[in-house]
């Protein structure tokens, strides 16, 4: 199926008739139609979430749901005000952000470094790949008790687990991206006598950057999941703790505040990384599709 603005072809004309292909709409109309199409897209993009919120608010006001379990958007905003007023929200957000950023940066750096080494040194990859696969599949939360045992009740076990969750995603994708760098980019480097490090800098790194940034984005989203999970069971601080604690206090509004803010934070974090990725790979932005002649 093709999606065009034009009407489908007319049924086959009888033999001997003259078939004319000519514009069906004027250029100005075509342009207007496309502009309208973009406006509709934007209306959908923002209108649907807003519409859903409005419906939710109306439903709550009409008492269609039990407001103890499903507070209205208005109630949530009110709880947000209270949580900010008492300062619990800022504190929780600060703690979680700190854990996330430190864990993410450490995990990503180690993952990138190791991914590039494994991607370039085939034998090392052969040796370590089974171990990495095995450790990757271990649920990170399951390691928490062991780490708590070793490191005690500090932030360290949390940071280690966040870093680990990021590390595995990044190392696996980076290794794959590096080994997938095409021969026709490596051969010129070899031909011009590039050293291993020069090949890495001029060829392997830029060639794998686009997929590396996709993996960083996935790892960022996943790190948020892991962090909230950890803070549910341990920590005594952070957004996960805030949500769990609200449940125990039956402060439903604050519970929703926590969930919504975590979601917003996850989106912002991923957007930041996608943005960094676009900055780091300018050649994928301009031009785009390559014309051959």
């Amino acid at each position, binding site marked *: 199926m093709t999606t065009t603005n034009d009407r489908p072809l007319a049924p086959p004309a009888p033999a001997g008739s003259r078939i004319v292909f000519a514009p069906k709409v004027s250029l100005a109309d075509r342009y207007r139609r496309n502009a309208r199409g973009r406006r509709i897209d934007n209306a959908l993009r923002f209108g649907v979430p807003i519409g859903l919120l409005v419906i939710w608010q109306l439903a709550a006001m009409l008492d269609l749901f039990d407001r103890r379990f499903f507070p209205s958007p208005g109630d949530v905003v009110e709880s947000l005000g209270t949580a900010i007023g008492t300062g619990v929200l800022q504190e929780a957000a600060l703690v979680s952000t700190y854990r996330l950023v430190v864990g993410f940066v450490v995990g990503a750096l180690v993952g990138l470094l190791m991914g590039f080494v494994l991607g370039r040194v085939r034998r090392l990859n052969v040796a370590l790949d089974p171990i990495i696969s095995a450790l990757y599949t271990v649920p990170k939360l399951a390691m928490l008790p062991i780490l708590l045992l070793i490191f005690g009740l500090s932030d360290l076990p949390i940071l280690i687990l966040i870093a680990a969750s990021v590390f595995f995603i990044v190392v696996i994708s980076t290794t794959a991206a590096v080994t997938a760098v095409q021969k026709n*980019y490596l051969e010129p480097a070899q*031909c011009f006598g590039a050293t291993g490090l020069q090949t890495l800098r001029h060829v392997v790194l830029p060639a794998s950057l686009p997929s590396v940034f996709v993996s960083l984005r996935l790892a960022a989203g996943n790190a948020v999941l892991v962090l909230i999970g950890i803070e549910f069971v341990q920590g005594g601080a952070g957004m996960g703790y805030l949500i769990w604690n609200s449940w125990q206090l039956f402060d439903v509004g604050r519970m929703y505040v926590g969930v919504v803010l975590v979601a917003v934070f996850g989106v912002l974090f991923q957007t930041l990384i996608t943005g960094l990725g676009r900055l780091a790979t300018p050649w994928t932005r301009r031009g785009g599709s*390559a014309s*051959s*002649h």
Partner: protein
Amino acid sequence: MAALDELDEIDPGTTARTDPKITVKGLERHFETPDGLLQALGPMDLEVRDGEFLCIVGPSGCGKSTFLRIAAGLLDPTGGEMAVNRQGTGPLSAMVFQDYSIFPWKTVEQNVRFGLEVGAGAPADAEERVGYWLDRLGLAAFRRSYPSELSGGMRQRVSIARALVVEPEILLMDEPFAALDAQLRMLMQDELLALWQEHRRTVVFITHNLDEAVLLGDRVIVMSKRPGHIVGEFEVPFTRPRTADLRGSGEFAALEQEIWANLRSEAYGAADAVTPAAPTVPTRRGLFRRAR
């Protein structure tokens, strides 16, 4: 015949030096494939003179790229040897690849500078050289463009500039104009002709196009079908500097015809039927290989 007579008087400057630049003796290359050991090249014997523009023609898959890769040091031979007579201290060879292989993540200027940044390190006049070759190949206006913003012809120029900027002793070109349309191809041939006559160096140039081979080459070598070895050799008698007008002359057409006759009978076989060489000694059985 006029051209041949002139040859005696005006030495083209390529045949005088006796020491060959490249000496190839019994060169072979095999590849391990799922169907067994495949001989892709050879045994091949060849001498390339210093400063010579040598063109190689031959059927697809006969081992031309393999030969060039060996010359570039990208591939080891599995038999025989290739000896290169090194004179300078700069880069020995540079290659213009069949698919250009310029880097999409580098701008035109960065692509051209690449060969100077890696290896021995940038020479003092690096910027000048990059500027010169960007100008010389009409790329100056595009220096900050990415390859994805360029036409096929422009990308090919980037690839040529990237190779020439390092001033290699040997320039290796693998069907550089194959992907260009017929008109652009002629323009690029004319440009390369002028360029080479200005900056002479040893060139090994692979092409499918006999016209191109005769216009550019001092000598045209014809290779057999796989495993490729040399089945014909033609000196191109036209004096330098040549111009594109040569294409219209009778001698040009005659030589082209002569090479084609040789290529057709020796390389493609008189009966036109190309039977692929049967692979020998199966090395292993593929798990999912279909029975034939």
